[in-house]
């Protein structure tokens, strides 16, 4: 019942926002080059629904792939670095530096190496997500009470068991903080990746709209990206609430 009410509140909120948008543009005489009416935007989407739907699905696929890869590798890195601090000391600075490189700068190279494929975009999305997940996994794993680790060890538990039964579950809240961030970052990676000669995708629609000075189409693509971003984030947050039921740290 609580969830239904929250949902209704959300829907009403959206409707109000939509009406406010429409009203503001009309009342304030905002020029369509800056902010078109919501009705115009929706009409444009309805005129060519295929482009937006296909774009939505393609970008979603790239985002999911990059997110999954980044999340998996990030957690793996965290676990490895926990066990091999020497490796962590060697690689962490390099990772930090790699995150200061704007991935768009070598996007051209990514296309050269991986071609015009889904994989190339997923690689860019992966690149943006693996580091925050690594950092947070390590943070979470290190935050486990060492006395509990010692206790389990005194019962004869091996490192693998301690990891599975104590450390990973204890680190989950922190890992999910990173996963929620990664949800948005992988979408950014997918969109930016599509700016390198892709054919379908929300990023492609954004670029086409910009170079054709089609502000209506631009806003339509932005709306689709917002829906994708919000939806994906909500799914991850929901998973977090279910899995980490003992309370998530902000």
């Amino acid at each position, binding site marked *: 019942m609580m969830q239904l009410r929250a949902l209704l509140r959300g829907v009403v909120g959206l409707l109000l926002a939509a009406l406010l948008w429409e009203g503001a543009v009309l009342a304030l005489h905002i020029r369509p*080059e800056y902010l078109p009416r919501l009705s115009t935007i929706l009409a*444009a989407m309805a005129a*060519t629904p*295929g*482009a937006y739907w296909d774009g939505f699905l393609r970008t979603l696929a790239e985002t999911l792939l990059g997110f999954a890869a980044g999340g998996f590798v990030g957690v793996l890195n965290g676990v490895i670095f926990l066990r091999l601090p020497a490796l962590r000391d060697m690689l962490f600075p390099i990772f930090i530096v790699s995150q200061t490189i704007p991935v*768009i700068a070598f*996007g*051209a190279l990514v*296309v*050269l*190496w991986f*071609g*015009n494929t889904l994989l190339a975009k997923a690689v860019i999305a992966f690149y943006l997500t693996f580091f925050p997940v690594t950092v947070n996994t390590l943070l979470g794993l290190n935050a486990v009470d060492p006395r509990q680790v010692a206790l389990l060890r005194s019962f004869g538990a091996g490192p693998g068991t301690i990891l599975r039964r104590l450390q990973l579950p204890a680190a989950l809240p922190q890992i999910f903080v990173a996963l929620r961030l990664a949800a948005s970052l992988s979408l950014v990676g997918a969109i930016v990746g599509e*700016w*390198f*000669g*892709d*054919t379908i995708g929300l990023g*492609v*629609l954004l*670029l*086409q*709209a*910009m*170079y*054709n*000075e*089609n502000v209506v*189409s631009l806003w*339509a693509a932005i709306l689709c990206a917002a829906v994708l971003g919000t939806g994906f984030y909500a799914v991850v947050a929901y998973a977090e609430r279910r899995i980490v039921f003992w309370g998530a740290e902000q």
Partner: protein
Amino acid sequence: MQRRSLLAGFGAALASPALHAQTLTRASLRLKWLPQAQFAGFYLAKAKAKGYYAAEGIDLTINPGGPNLLTENLVATGADTFGLSGGTDSVFAARDKGLPIICVGVAHQVTPFFFVTRADGPIKTLADFRGKNLTAWFTGANYVLLGMLAQAGLRAGDFNLQPQQVSVTPFIEGQTDVVTATKYNEFYTLVSRMGRDKLRTFVAEDYGITFPRDTLIVGEAIAKEKPELVKGFLRASMKGWREALAEPKLGVDTVMGIAPTLNREHQEFMLTEIGKLMLAGKAAREGLFWIDQDAIKSAHDFLLRYEVIKQPINLATAYDRSFLDAIALADRRA
């Protein structure tokens, strides 16, 4: 690290004509920009209903370009088989840097852009550019402008030249005095928002400068090992363009199918103008994608004079007309 072209394994199969129908050679064409009517002929030739590339034994993928990609680079590394690249200037630059690509056809026979000012403004001749705010693309058009202005006695510092923006709105709103526009793209926006009679144009050819653009390039290795592939690609492309120019509505429909969010009137205008560019000069007689050696030499010497190219380039090897010559005149004409 280098991506080998996908054609590697198909070499032997191509030799047997009986196998043409069964084994298609995989190849790709990288365009110079986002999909629009400027590339209608290629899209039409690939369209399922036409299948001109397939008829030549080529399974062609068309990859769009964009602001962050360089076609010469992608063709040089084998990421793409063919490319429709920036123009004679970018081919010179690539050869200058030692990229193993050659040009096998030139789409736009004359300079496809010009410089636009307000008809009722103070600029009547090139000399009036002095002290004004100019914008041009720094990917080639700026040299043409500098060359034209040098003839009027103006040199760097006599005017304010800035890289041109994505949008022509600053010109329309009066923030800049001179804007660079392609005849087929930005000009449409200017005409529809300001009216043709309000605009004055300065054309490079009027000042003895020619800058052919939209060059078809291919890797040196492919050209040497698979000449039939190159010829087949050219033949099919010509067929597609012949039809796109003869039936503009079909051409525009095909492009709108690829990028549904484009503006139809704009694309129709674009296709008409592209047709004029592709059939200008010697192309009217010799056929589409003709390589006019005189025009190429003129552009080369121009860039050499302004030290954009540091040393002369062997034009005979960089611009290989043998593939065009090998195709029957009837197949080349539009």
